[in-house]
């Protein structure tokens, strides 16, 4: 067992939490504004794909990331148009996005790269070397290896907390999720706020997907998100739609994933075909302890009809 429970576990736990954090906070913003976003999975996948495609064409990981963010915002716009303007069922509309994401990204691998299943390698996103931090004991090694996206993901919890609970925009956003009619009655444009939240949600989820493809591996593989968008949703629910607990839930699920990966390489006597299921089982177990839906935003999933 030696070598599994080490600093490397913490490190890979953080790496594996980052995509979950980005997507989970995307989901949090959308649901706090009253729109369910189960399209996170598809938005991650499209982000991962767009990031690699753009990085491949431009030979730049930065442009890849920007393309991923743009595509993410676009998918958010589509989801907002469906659920806010057309007032379709939010789950069914998002399922369409998820199916389209799987179909489009898988079908376009061959025409773009001439090979099935996976893209060629593209420039990866670098990790940041911090001059002083690396000499710190223990935390130095962790903090030294992070990329911009890791830092952004870890900063999300405090930033989202401040935005939600200490700014007028956050108050409006939460109002749209708790009672859109009352929020509208004081002159706030519910439709506009919901659009902003859902677009931001898509952008963050796509950033999570781009992290998987551009930071972790530097290629796109078909269906490479493997349900992480749904694990992020589970983290959001387990964290009761509150920033700090959601951060904790993402780190927990990321750590479970890291344990699974490291147990395979460290030769633990458990078949790796079974270990793959560990993060999903941990997420399910976490949800099983969840009691009631009283902590969900009161108006989540409910369309707002302008009078």
């Amino acid at each position: 067992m030696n070598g599994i429970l080490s600093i490397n576990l913490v490190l890979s736990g953080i790496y594996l939490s980052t995509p979950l954090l980005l997507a989970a906070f995307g989901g949090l913003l959308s649901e706090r504004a009253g729109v369910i976003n189960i399209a996170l999975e598809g938005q991650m996948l499209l982000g991962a794909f767009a990031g690699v495609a753009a990085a491949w064409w431009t030979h730049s990981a930065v442009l890849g990331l920007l393309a991923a963010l743009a595509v993410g915002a676009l998918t958010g716009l589509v989801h907002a148009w469906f659920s806010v303007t057309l007032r379709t069922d939010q789950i069914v509309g998002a399922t369409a996005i998820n199916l389209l994401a799987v179909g489009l990204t898988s079908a376009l691998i061959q025409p773009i790269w001439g090979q099935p299943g996976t893209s060629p390698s593209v420039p990866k996103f670098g990790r940041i070397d911090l001059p002083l931090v690396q000499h710190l004991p223990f935390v130095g090694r962790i903090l030294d290896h992070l990329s911009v996206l890791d830092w952004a993901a870890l900063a999300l919890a405090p930033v989202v907390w401040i935005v939600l609970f200490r700014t007028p925009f956050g108050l409006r956003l939460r109002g749209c999720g708790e009672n859109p009619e009352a929020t509208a009655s004081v002159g706030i444009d519910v439709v506009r706020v919901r659009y902003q939240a859902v677009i931001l949600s898509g952008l963050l989820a796509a950033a999570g997907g781009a992290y998987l493809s551009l930071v972790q591996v530097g290629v796109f593989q078909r269906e490479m998100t493997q349900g992480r968008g749904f694990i992020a949703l589970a983290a959001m629910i387990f964290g009761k739609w509150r920033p700090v607990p959601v951060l904790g839930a993402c780190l927990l699920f990321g750590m479970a994933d890291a344990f699974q990966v490291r147990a395979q390489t460290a030769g633990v006597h458990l078949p790796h075909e079974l270990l793959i299921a560990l993060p999903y089982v941990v997420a399910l177990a976490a949800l099983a302890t969840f009691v009631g839906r009283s902590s969900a935003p009161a108006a989540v999933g409910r369309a707002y009809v302008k009078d």
Partner: protein
Amino acid sequence: MSTVIVPPVETPPPKGGRPPATAALVGRHGVRTVVLFVGTALAALVVAAPIIAIAGANPLDAYRALFEGSLGSQRGLAETLVATTPLLVAGLAVSVAFRGGLFNIGVEGQLVIGGLVAGTIGAQATLPPVVHVVVAMAGGAAAAAAWALIPALLKAYRGVHEVITTIMLNYVAFALSTYLVSPGGLLVSKTQPSATEKVKDTAVLPRVWAPTRLHAGIFVAGALVAVTWWFLFRTRAGYRLRMVGGNPTAARFNGIDPRRVTVQTMCLSGALAGLAGAIEVLGVHLRYFDSFSPGYGFDAIAVALLGAITPVGVAASALFFGVLRSGSVLLQARAGVSRDMITVISGLVVAFVAARVVLERRLSRKEPR
């Protein structure tokens, strides 16, 4: 099928809840349902055309290959019906859940569990003809129902949304089934990697149209359409299920325990999904193969929605997707378009069905009540 009764769904949902996903999806008028079906399917094919062009093929050539491959020969026609069979049964699974107010995205995982258990019973048990195949199918259905019990209980007694739990369980089911037929796994065949032993002749669903692969499963699927219709619209249990799906609050006031019905609905949906997998294994592959399903459980969502979650509509819609699935072989071989384009068309169908509420809202405003 114009006698289909839909429970009233006009009452606003209880505070904190969400309007049942089913409300806007149920077909009400015979003619309109047919027009909407054809219109939605055509719209999806039209919008998919530029995507096919982007993927580097001529859309017209692609569609010609698709329909020639699926309808242009005896073999193609038989393969269309072979693909229709699991799509139909899995589509019924999704529909039953929708009717009860549940979105079962876990059909794919339940289908895998059902196929694995049916294949194992078919290979290991020794039983007389007929009995063996029935026991194998029942075993697959029961195992998948048990698998669906987990999200059912979490939904009913913990309030955890079934979309997330059923998706999680898909990944667990894939991992578990892959493990059981991996080298050294409990169920792996001695001669065939990533598969169970061949099912015995007594457990095989017989071929019905030599020399094609069309098997008796198509008749089982047809019978299930009739049974599901009868259950939903002619039994008390079916009425309770639809009532909970339409308006859980009203159901509670009528002395129905929505939680119990929710558990029953999800297990019934799981059982149908398991049957879809069992039929596929006992009729087509004759042993359980790892990842034998090309995503039938996900296509089933589009099948159910296009079919307006009525059993007969689902049958028609399964045939449409059966055409796409069997035609996709020639689509890939001749037009060079990936089979994944079928998933794109599924997604477009779901998007159009979702967007249809706008149309229906407009139509119902013009009609006097």
